[in-house]
């Protein structure tokens, strides 16, 4: 509890939303439609994550036509383009304005407690009480490090995607990028092009072509219904929720960002980083298999797309199926690398992100610190909901375009809950 606000009586509202990213704003819109009295707390500014936790060159990997939120969609003249960070911030800000969301900015939530049927919310600007809480505080608040990170040799600087802005902030020496998903590959690409020699440590990853049969892969994923796949269509939801981001970048020239493209640029591919022995990094000998798994998985996805395409009335109008070259791996990928001797001066941990629930004083986290929920409904704590997590209810849940279905479901569920209470 913050001392200064203790003396003021807590304000009361039916529901509070924590976070004014696109997810918090989308649920705010749906709550307003249902006539639920609510307020949205934001520790910084609207679209705070996009303002402060992203690098400068980042563009969305989802095309503009896919940028839509309940009651709002992209209206510019480049539907196939990809938004820059300033465009994303502008898009989300305009949305907040259009729906006239009741956002309190610079209002960090410091604690949420449950007291009988109510929630007590402490914020930087005062205390609140509500009957329902929607956690929309983001899935990527903190970078995740593998345990081996703690043994990083002192001679290298370490950096996360949250600190990284552009290559000029790095030492001129070589860079070890750990992680080969969207973030790792995009940064490896940019840093290698800046003249620094990049080595990328590759664990399991998802390979996808930007363009397939002359259409954007997101078009196919959307049209085939893959992005709409829901919880009950998946046998292993834990696995589905942990799938890393696809190797995609949203660039003007629609470049394919895969490990072969990395090799063409001169980036060195090594296996998963397993250990440090002094200044010597040790990599897994499983590189070939993780690449084979990704190649095979991509092949199965393209098969699914082709089967779907063949069933469409306009089947004739699609360009013919394609298959892509397998991931090329050296005969003897490097297993140990002396960072000192090799001139590597920076390690960039592109090993994923996780939410930060430090403020959450309701026992709803599992032993791995994940919020236990049933399609966004936090069943262990009636009246609590979560939005914006990977595969919350559908494969598209963590994307901007995936929010609408989830937000509508949660707003309905919440309205029902308030009515019954």
């Amino acid at each position, binding site marked *: 509890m913050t001392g200064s606000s203790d003396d003021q009586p807590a304000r009361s509202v039916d529901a509070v939303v924590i976070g004014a990213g696109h997810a918090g704003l989308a649920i705010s819109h749906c709550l307003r439609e249902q006539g639920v009295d609510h307020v949205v707390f934001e520790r910084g500014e609207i679209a705070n994550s996009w303002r402060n936790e992203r690098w400068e060159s980042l563009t969305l990997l989802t095309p503009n036509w896919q940028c839509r939120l309940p009651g709002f969609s992209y209206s510019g003249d480049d539907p196939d383009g990809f938004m820059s960070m300033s465009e994303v911030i502008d898009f989300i800000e305009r949305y907040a304005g259009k729906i006239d969301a009741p956002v309190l900015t610079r209002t960090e939530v410091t604690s949420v407690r449950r007291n009988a049927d109510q929630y007590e919310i402490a914020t930087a600007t005062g205390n609140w009480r509500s009957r329902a809480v929607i956690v929309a505080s983001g899935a990527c608040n903190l970078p995740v490090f593998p345990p081996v990170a703690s043994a990083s040799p002192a001679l290298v600087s370490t950096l996360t995607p949250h600190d990284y802005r552009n290559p000029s902030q790095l030492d001129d020496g070589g860079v070890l990028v750990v992680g080969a998903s969207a973030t790792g590959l995009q940064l490896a690409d940019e840093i290698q092009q800046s003249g620094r020699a990049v080595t990328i440590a590759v664990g399991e990853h998802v390979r996808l072509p930007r363009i397939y049969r002359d259409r954007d892969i997101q078009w196919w994923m959307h049209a085939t219904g893959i992005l709409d796949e829901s919880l009950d269509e998946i046998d292993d939801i834990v696995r589905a929720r942990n799938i890393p981001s696809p190797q995609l970048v949203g660039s003007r020239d629609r470049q394919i960002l895969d490990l072969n493209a990395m090799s063409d640029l001169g980036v060195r591919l090594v296996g998963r980083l*397993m250990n440090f022995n002094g200044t010597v990094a*040790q990599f897994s*000998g*499983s590189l070939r*298999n993780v690449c*084979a798994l990704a190649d095979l998985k991509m092949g*199965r996805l393209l098969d699914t797309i082709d089967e779907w395409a063949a069933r469409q009335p306009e089947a004739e109008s699609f360009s013919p199926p394609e298959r892509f070259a397998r991931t090329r791996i050296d005969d003897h990928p490097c297993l140990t690398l002396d960072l000192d001797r090799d001139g590597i001066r920076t390690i960039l941990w592109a090993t994923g992100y996780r939410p930060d629930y430090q403020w959450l004083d309701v026992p709803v986290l599992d032993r791995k610190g994940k919020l236990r929920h049933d399609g966004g409904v936090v069943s262990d704590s009636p009246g609590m909901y979560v939005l914006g997590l990977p595969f919350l209810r559908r494969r598209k849940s963590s994307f901007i375009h995936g929010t609408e279905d989830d937000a509508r479901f949660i707003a309905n569920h919440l309205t029902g809950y308030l009515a019954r209470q």
Partner: protein
Amino acid sequence: MSESTSSVDNGVNVEALLGAREALSQAPEAAQFKWRATCDWVKGTHSKSSVTSFFGLGEEQQHRREFTFEADHPEVFASEDLGATPVEVVLCGLASCLMAGVAAVAQHRGIQLNSVKATLEAGMDIQGILGIDADVRNGFDGINVSFEVDGDASAEDLEALVAQSQKRSAVFDIVTNPTNVNVSVTKTG
């Protein structure tokens, strides 16, 4: 991924394995296993190892009987060749582990296997173990595993089976990734 089909029988009880996975994800303590082996020196490079017990599911477990493995070095090393070379035992461990995985994954994916054979070859420059060249490592410079699979599925699906087996294999992990090894010595006799 398809569910296990009842007509497919690779002799793997997938339901039991899936049940164990479900139960152990609720009770991670029970998932803590200890594997053991003992080894006695016989003579020269000849030794005899055996396994009898292990720990798992929260208690001591016994194999149905004691299993023994003899190891030695071949005659080209001036030994008597009374058993497999230890590095060959490592290859056998890797092969058996991948093989078990292939059968389990095939059962889970509804793929009937008719025959599966794995052939392994590992290169080694023995200048390492002989201490001739300090830059040469003692161990393998690489392992090649080739699988020949006769099963009721496409070539890609069979390849995916073997890839998934590597992903889930303990011995594959042990040989591809570093492991801390602590060796202690007690004076006896």
